[in-house]
């Protein structure tokens, strides 16, 4: 139980006061912040609607002339609402947050190469090495090959993400062995994190290669 900083009436900890609608300024889990049940399948348009509608009511701009306590609560609740929206609208961030809620740790840094990607990763690393050491002459053709690789990596992220969302639905329906599902979620999230890091490396190498061509 807490006291609403705006109307002083008692309330359960929620995003807004059930009596006067003002923000309460308490920390909540991100699903609760958006008034959602703990379900992994989310409709992004519905999410945006909730975010905009709630944001309109609790944003600090609505409380510009209120007391400092109310302004502070509005600030905290709006920051929480935004964090909830940004995290839950992205399936990968949502999955990671979900694991966190369940106290399941994802491997600290995703340095280990996912087994089924080992060959691809090896090839990409080799290509990256060539591109970094390339002179003007063949940088162009190497760059083109690298771009094709990049598309391949993006495709992997997309299919893994689809797989992730299928698992979200399975989890929500209560089907399947819980621990197996958790493991599958973890493996999908690790793969995505790993491939994303690799894609960033590729982008960086491509950027500096094109910059070199321009300056020379």
């Amino acid at each position, binding site marked *: *139980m807490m*006291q609403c900083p705006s109307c002083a009436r008692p309330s*359960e900890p929620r995003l807004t006061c059930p009596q006067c609608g003002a923000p309460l300024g308490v920390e909540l889990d991100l699903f609760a912040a958006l008034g959602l049940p703990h379900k992994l399948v989310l409709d992004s348009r519905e999410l945006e609607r909730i975010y*905009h509608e709630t944001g309109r009511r609790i944003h*600090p*701009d609505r409380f510009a002339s209120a*007391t400092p306590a109310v302004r502070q609560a509005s*600030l905290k609740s709006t920051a929480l609402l935004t964090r909830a929206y940004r995290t839950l609208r992205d399936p990968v961030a949502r999955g990671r947050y979900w694991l966190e809620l369940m106290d399941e740790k994802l491997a600290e840094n995703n340095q280990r190469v996912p087994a089924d990607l080992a060959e691809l990763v090896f090839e990409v690393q080799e290509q990256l090495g060539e591109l970094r050491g390339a002179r003007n002459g063949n940088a162009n053709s190497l760059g083109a090959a690298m771009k094709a690789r990049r598309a391949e990596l993006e495709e992997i992220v997309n299919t893994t993400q689809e797989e992730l969302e299928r698992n979200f639905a399975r989890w929500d329906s209560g089907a399947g062995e819980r621990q197996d599902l958790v493991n599958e979620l973890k493996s999908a999230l690790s793969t995505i994190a790993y491939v994303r890091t690799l894609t960033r490396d590729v982008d960086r190498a491509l950027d500096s290669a094109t910059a070199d061509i321009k300056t020379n």
Partner: protein
Amino acid sequence: MSRIFGIDLGTTNSLIAVMEGERPRILADPATGDPLLPSVVAITPQGEVFVGEQAIAMEPHLTVERDGRIHAIGFEGGEAGAVVRSVKRYMGLGGDEVAAEDRHRYSFADFSGPVVRFAVGKRTFTPSQISAEILRALKARAEAALGEKVERVVITVPAYFNDGQRQATKDAGRLAGLEVMRLVNEPTAASLAYGLNQLAEGRVAVFDLGGGTFDISILNIKGGIFEVLATNGDTHLGGDDFDRLLVDLLLADLPHQLRLDRHIWNSARLAAEAAKKELSDQDQARMKLALPDREVCKAVTRAEFERMADPLVGRSLKRCRMALTDAGLAPGEVDAVVLVGGSTRIPLVRRRVAELFGREPLCSLDPDHVVALGAAVQAGVLMGSQGDMLLLDVVPLSLGIETMGGVMERLIHRNTTIPTNVTEGFTTAVDNQTHVDIHVVQGERELAADCRSLARFKLGPIETQPAGLPRIQVSFLIDANGILNVTAHDVRTGREHSVDVKPSYGLTDDEIERMLEESIDLGEQDLEQRMLISARNDAAQLLGALSKQLDEYGSLIGAQERVQVQECAAKLEAARNGTDRAYISALVEELNQLSTPFAERIMDYAIGRALEKKSVEELS
């Protein structure tokens, strides 16, 4: 309560505007009818201050006297008094951050302190103090035009301003005796002005090239919500830089020593600015500079100017592409492009922007007025008169902390919607450590040393414990103004920790307080007035809450207690519209004390009810 005004505190010109009915209106100088106030401040050796056209007349320059001789007149800076223009370029900068080409323009006190200081006579002035003079002049202008007090304002800042530059702007407001209700990013403000009736829903790019700063913001407008998707910019790119190209051309044949002369330089700048404006309508312009021993003349064609200016425009376009990438959009996916800022009158700028986005940009609102108009609209939003309109802006630069090895760990990524917060756990590294030092930086580079230092925090004192045992949660919160607030608490004890903030640049609170005391213009009366308003607010809040509580939980208060509380409430009710601030505050305090036991009983009762409900649920 007084109205909220919108202020565009520009590099070259400043404006003040207010909502009149449904539309924002710029408040012109009642004497001259000029809506623009040149952002130029003159300070005489005696400490007298002039702002605007009067200050421009005091700038060092060359003039031809009646006898035909050429004289150098105006305040040169230092002992002679100073005239500062484009002070916005110096806002929030440390002494060591002043660009080499800017150093000879003015007399600075030193280049080592955490704040740039202009030397005038025997005193020094920070950029915030000089900007405060511009704000005071705008306040006076609006008060003369409307006959009402200006106390609360919205001030616009470049979207790409960092934390220190924003803080310095807020400080300027405080020094001018204004309550800064909100800082708003200039391109976003412009989108609000256009959004009133000129723009359909969709994705909008606002290209804002002003006198000294450049911003690009990409927004999504939907159902009255103006949501910024990404922003980028350059706080040292604007009209001043275009002028400088022409100044360099005009002075190219002069010996180095003469080029640094402030009288010559300023006269050249005036000729350059005039030529630049001419080149927006004509194919050729002539710049003339009369020196005591000769006359310097340079003709420049538009094609030549465009060749020189192209790299500058290129810099702005590069920033546009970065913003588009961050927004996840291709240039063609933008539904409208809006031009803001005087420098978008340059035909080359318009052409290049149209090429990049593949569409003709909008410029139906005066590019010099649109930001101030938008600031007034945002002031309307804060007063609750703009219906459902709401602005969701972003933080322009990532914010992080320095970790082991000097690497920057990003806590809040650039283009995150604000307000936003993030919590980070800290502990000690050695046994019995009593303090933890945290270095907060802002920027996009990997190493903390390459980012801009924002502040250093000292957490503690921490109870002496073995290393790694203390657990302190630090919350980094960026408010709607884009300014960082830090709080900390001990996880085990739940106790709030004191955070000793040492800003790397800018003024400390103590310094601002001192400046406020020194400032003569801020009368005691203003301060008393604000304290009275705040006491009245407290009274209204307390009386409102109490009356609701008495209605709903009347059974929880004893008869005698009720009489006492109600008598005190009646006294406060009668006093709260009076002007005796001390009396109102005393009654608020008394009523608070009287009603605390009642409030505690309500809380106990509510907790009891909640527990009951839970146990019933568990049983069933």
